């Protein structure tokens, strides 16, 4: 890659898209210097202050800072209430989703901590929950705020533990009902085993599909997680996290997981078994590989080079799953800077729409603007917080690139530009300067040949804008 390519590359892969001024700053600092500085800053987000305008907006979203317990107590629908009251409560619940969506987009567009926002997208998707399922509606926002966000550049083990104990995950993958059928409290809706979480935990979150586990391991792990449940009206708790361990639904017998004995029961009634199992999974070499593969695929190429994946897996193991260390290795690798991978990652709808918002220099977008982005994501088949399948959205080109999707992307690009008020329409020359060499010479020639009022839409809907 040449110097201008390097700038485009680092900005497009470590952020959600180039903003006005980014390129000028890089040129001013000198390319190599800028890149090193940028990577270091992005890996240490607390060194980057968030602008006051953003903090003010986030402060105005009160549900973001409520605990899972508070969300349950203030927003759960009371099944005993009459129909009208229940309806009103359901409408009130929608506020949680609205605020989560707004916060996500505001940060993605305006926060200087771009790698953190990129990793929120990555890890939320990896540990996907959908707010479409029962009580998950209450907790999806809190899940992002407390289980995902604080750990995106931390230790994988902490991230795993936080997701495993979060009520959103416990409901989404049914573990909150998972009960030893022979336990004292096995009754009603809690009569037996449910292996949904245990299976996805190994297949998707840690070891990977070929990670060397058997059906017997799924069954053991299911028993290990019996009794891991959530706050409900019948299961109140003082714990703000909303996590509840129901000792009387847990199977306290000894288990074998991946050939290792997990001693059952104990003074805490067996809660520790699950923690032990998570630690075992977090440090398993198959997990190191699986996570490394996914990171390489997300940041480098749909079919990432095998050498890079092994290097990252080694780093993962050597650092006890330190995500920051693994990412640094990735950004310093030769593979990351290979010209063959430049502008070759097809953006997901999320990445595409946010990169448009960033390129046009959206400043403190209105609620309406944010709702439009949300609506556009739906139209492109990627509704935020509503991916039904636990494997999350695809992060490769195949499922997103097709004739129909191209019609929509181009149309949304036009709509985005046209919708902006006249005084705030992106100035085509300025937009061209922002994107710089991300636009090929050919694209620039065609754009500059078109009527002025179409140029911005053409740039935003150009082939070059579809890739990062």
């Amino acid at each position, binding site marked *: 890659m040449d110097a201008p390519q390097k700038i485009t590359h680092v900005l497009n892969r470590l952020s959600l898209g180039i903003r006005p001024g980014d390129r000028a700053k890089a040129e001013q600092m000198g390319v190599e210097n800028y890149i090193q500085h940028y990577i270091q800053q992005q890996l240490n987000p607390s060194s980057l202050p968030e602008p006051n305008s953003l903090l003010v907006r986030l402060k105005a979203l009160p549900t973001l800072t409520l605990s899972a317990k508070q969300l349950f107590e203030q927003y759960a629908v009371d099944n005993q209430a009459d129909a009208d009251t229940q309806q009103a409560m359901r409408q009130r619940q929608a506020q949680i989703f609205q605020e989560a969506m707004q916060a996500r987009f505001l940060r993605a567009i305006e926060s200087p901590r771009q790698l953190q926002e990129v990793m929120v997208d990555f890890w939320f998707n990896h540990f996907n929950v959908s707010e479409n399922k029962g009580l998950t509606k209450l907790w999806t926002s809190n899940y992002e705020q407390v289980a995902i966000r604080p750990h995106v550049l931390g230790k994988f083990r902490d991230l795993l533990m936080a997701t495993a104990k979060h009520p959103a995950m416990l409901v989404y993958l049914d573990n909150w009902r998972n009960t030893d059928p022979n336990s004292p409290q096995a009754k009603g809706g809690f009569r037996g085993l*449910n*292996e949904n979480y245990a299976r996805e935990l190994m297949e998707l979150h840690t070891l990977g599909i070929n990670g060397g586990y058997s059906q017997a391991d799924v069954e053991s792990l299911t028993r290990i997680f019996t009794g891991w449940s959530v706050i409900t009206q019948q299961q109140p708790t003082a714990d703000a996290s909303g996590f509840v361990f129901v000792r009387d639904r847990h199977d306290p017998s000894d288990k074998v997981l991946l050939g290792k004995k997990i001693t059952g029961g104990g003074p805490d009634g067996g809660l520790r078994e699950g923690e032990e199992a998570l630690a075992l999974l977090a440090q398993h070499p198959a997990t190191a590989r699986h996570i490394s593969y996914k990171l390489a695929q997300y940041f480098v190429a749909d*079919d990432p080079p095998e050498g890079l994946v092994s290097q990252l897996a080694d780093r993962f193991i050597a650092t006890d799953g330190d995500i920051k260390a693994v990412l640094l290795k990735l950004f310093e690798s030769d593979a990351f800077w290979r010209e063959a991978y430049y502008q070759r990652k097809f953006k997901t709808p999320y990445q595409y729409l946010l990169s448009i918002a960033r390129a046009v220099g959206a400043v403190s977008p209105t609620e309406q603007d944010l709702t439009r982005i949300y609506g556009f994501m739906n139209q492109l088949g990627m509704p935020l917080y509503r991916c039904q399948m636990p494997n999350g959205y695809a992060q490769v*080109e195949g499922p997103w690139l097709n*004739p129909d999707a191209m019609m929509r992307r181009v149309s949304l690009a036009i709509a985005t530009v046209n919708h902006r008020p006249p005084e705030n329409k992106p100035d085509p020359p300025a937009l061209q300067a922002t994107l710089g060499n991300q636009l090929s010479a050919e694209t620039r020639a*065609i754009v500059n*040949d078109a009527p002025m009022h179409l140029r911005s839409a053409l740039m935003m809907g150009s082939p070059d804008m579809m890739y990062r």
Partner: protein
Amino acid sequence: MKRRHFITHTTLAAASGFVTLAGHGWAWRAKAQSGPAAALAANSPRLIVVFLRGGTDGLNVVVPYQEARYYEARPSIAIAKPGSQGAPDKSAIDKSAIDLDGQFGLHPALQPLMSEWQAGNLAFVHACGSPSETRSHFQAQDYIETGMPDVVANDGWLNRLLAEMRNENPTQAINVGEKMSLILTGDETVASITANGAADRPLPIDRPQIQTAFDRLYAGKSQLARAYQEGRRAREIVLREISEEMMKASRGALPPEQFKDSAQSLARLMTSDAATQIAFMELGNWDTHVNQMGLMQRNLGLLATGLKTLVKDLGAVYNNTTIVVISEFGRTVAENGNGGTDHGHGNVVWLLGGGIQGKKVYGEWPGLTATSGYESREYESRDLAITTDFRDVLISLLSQQFGFGSGAIARIFPNYQAQKTLPLV
């Protein structure tokens, strides 16, 4: 993730400017004329695949009501025997199975399809499925869609079928859904409409001045440019065929009505100049780990309404259309602790169409007891066994209805030798 792995290959190849789609695929398609598609003769064979995502509980769809084990294993979620008399409340009778053949009964929510059964247009293949042992939704779905269980593959069998039938019509195959399904992914391009009607509403790209400008940006031969070009051609046809009235009706429909609305749009595309011959639809929410009874009742009702809409709106074309309804795997014989069932193995495949030899449940029934199929599978003594590979059903259909010989069949289902033939058509 095998699927991801495999998709990457195509991606990289395309990204590095590599074009080997000669003969078929986008390179060839881009040269095709864009005039109105020649109407397809009403007697040309057509195929619609309806995928039930999540693993439908086939034992509660086509109920083996003579099996004592079925009722033992499902104390709270079994479907009662047909015409159960002396039930404590009257509603119990409505919840009992509808007798099919003295051995199996249909879920009561499928009552709207009984006229098709009586007319001999509806058949089932029980204890059918993919031989893969996987209980992962994603793998199992991929295997049904690629038609290659336990193999890493990057294209779907419906796309390979399309390659065998390809004409120059950009709407020859239609994907209904939020995004392109794997079953229709491959070298051949496929048009799509979404389930929520969004694709059918006017888009900015439909305005002539904008089109001209964008057409220049996407005049090249890259995979991206060809996708754009195909999209433009397909849109012209879809917009011409799906009336404004239909667009309005489906716009903003809530999910329960979406399936029926999409069925209506699809039938229009199949019976008009759009001449659609192959189509894929999907309906989700079948992963009934919890409270299965209500979910199944609702989902099967939606499905029955959508299928009935297809039957009605396809008109004469229905005589040569087969609708295959399939899911990635069945569910456990026994209910779990939450009034639901967990991931299982064997399932039931549905066949609906004017040419089907219906009013019959095909396949060898393995039973649910230890001496029959149920406990015959070593460590997995919990599921319905599989006695018919799903590909045998599809191959029988494709050779009998579409007239494909062994060469074409081998290209559609590579490295597979059919184990038996079912007289379906």
